[in-house]
């Protein structure tokens, strides 16, 4: 028998990770619930003033998405690290960055994508202008994979630590700043009726940059963490 081709290996690992998640269905909803709850807290904290909420809705939704993405990150490599599957992946004959990309894709499909489905509901609850809602979805679609990709570097660096959680946020959040700026401003701009293609193009550029660079950094960091 022959070794799997690279794309076959990629798809195999992606499917394996999805299978694993569906056999642990209980955890599937957690990041989404977190996302919804954080957003619910804002009207409670600052008062349910429609104009104010509509004004800050893009910011709230994006900050909540950012936190949800960050908190769910730990599960990308955690179980593989604990049961020894990760060292077997590192010793695989396939290039590690490709395998990392497969795992991050799977992770995004189960944590990032649900946010996309929930966002219109939340946008409506916060009274966001309907012109802005399409752009909101677009920014989440392009932006959350970037968060997963950058975040995976941080997880890989801290996976071996007993108290990795806090330090992970310290490492990852500053790197999320550009995505946050451009995504929130695109939604703002769309609400005010401006052309937001520059912001969307920037987000796309971030996506391409992080797809091509971050898997290398993540696999280097995983190698470091396993040694």
């Amino acid at each position, binding site marked *: 028998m022959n070794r799997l081709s690279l794309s076959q290996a990629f798809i195999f690992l992606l499917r394996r990770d999805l299978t694993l998640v569906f056999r642990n269905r209980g955890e599937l909803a957690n990041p989404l619930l977190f996302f919804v709850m954080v957003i619910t807290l804002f009207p409670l904290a600052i008062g349910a003033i429609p104009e104010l909420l509509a004004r800050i809705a893009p910011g709230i939704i994006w900050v909540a998405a950012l936190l949800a993405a960050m908190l769910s990150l730990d599960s990308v490599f955690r179980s593989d690290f604990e049961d020894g599957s990760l060292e077997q992946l590192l010793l695989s004959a396939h290039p590690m960055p490709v395998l990392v990309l497969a795992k991050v894709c799977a992770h995004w499909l189960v944590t990032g994508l649900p946010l996309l489905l929930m966002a219109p509901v939340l946008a409506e609850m916060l009274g966001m202008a309907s012109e802005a809602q399409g752009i909101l979805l677009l920014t989440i679609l392009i932006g959350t994979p970037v968060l997963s990709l950058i975040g995976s570097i941080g997880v890989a660096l801290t996976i071996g630590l007993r108290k990795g959680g806090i330090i992970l946020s310290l490492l990852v959040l*500053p790197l999320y700043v550009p995505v946050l700026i451009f995504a929130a401003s695109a939604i703002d701009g769309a609400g005010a009726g401006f052309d937001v293609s520059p912001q969307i193009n920037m987000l796309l550029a971030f996506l391409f940059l992080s797809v091509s660079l971050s898997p290398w950094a993540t696999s*280097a960091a995983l190698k470091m963490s396993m040694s």
Partner: protein
Amino acid sequence: MFLWFHKFGSPPHFYRIAGKWLPWLGVTFGLLLIAGLYGGLIYAPADYQQGESFRIIYIHVPAAWMSLFVYMVMAFCGVVIIVWRMKLAEVVLISSAPIGASFTFLALATGSLWGKPMWGAWWVWDARLTSELILLFLYLGVIGLHSAIDDKRIASRAVAILAIVGVVNIPIIHYSVEWWNTLHQGPTVTKFDKPSIDMRMLIPLLIMALAFKIYYVMALFQSCRAELLRRERNSKWVEELSGSN
């Protein structure tokens, strides 16, 4: 060239050389500092708009420059660590982090001290201050990660990766923040570094910048020597060192 690099990179050799250079660096720094202070505090005329308060830039601007410069040095060390696994680069990287963080903090604090009389508030979301704040977080991440990992050789590789990732992101973060700033506040905010600065103001600034750079090398050597002793305390050269004293 490579041989020299290799020899310079050996811990005992660097330890000795750094010890020899330290006094000279100290003297150079002292002279530059006196010149810079004289130039900045006395020789340079007061700014026609900001009055005497502009003299804070002789601390603020060199500190801000150094905060970026030190991070570049760290990222360079990161590449050397990943590619050549050189011990000295590990020591330089981690010794640089607190110094760089200090410069960043100094830039932030002096920016705030300058902003109070100028803007009437201790903090405004000015592009440079915001970037410096994020840079400070990046430094704290490096320091935090290094101290969280017990095995120092593994910790060095971890911060090497982090520094490289950080340096790729710094320009992106910087321009994002700049862009965000013009979007929300308009370009009316007075900037420190005006393109047309008086020569009598500029020269002391450059002297101070040079003094800070020399200071960085001096503080770096000092703290590298301590770090080398700590890491290599069981090696032969350290034992010989304590024997000869």
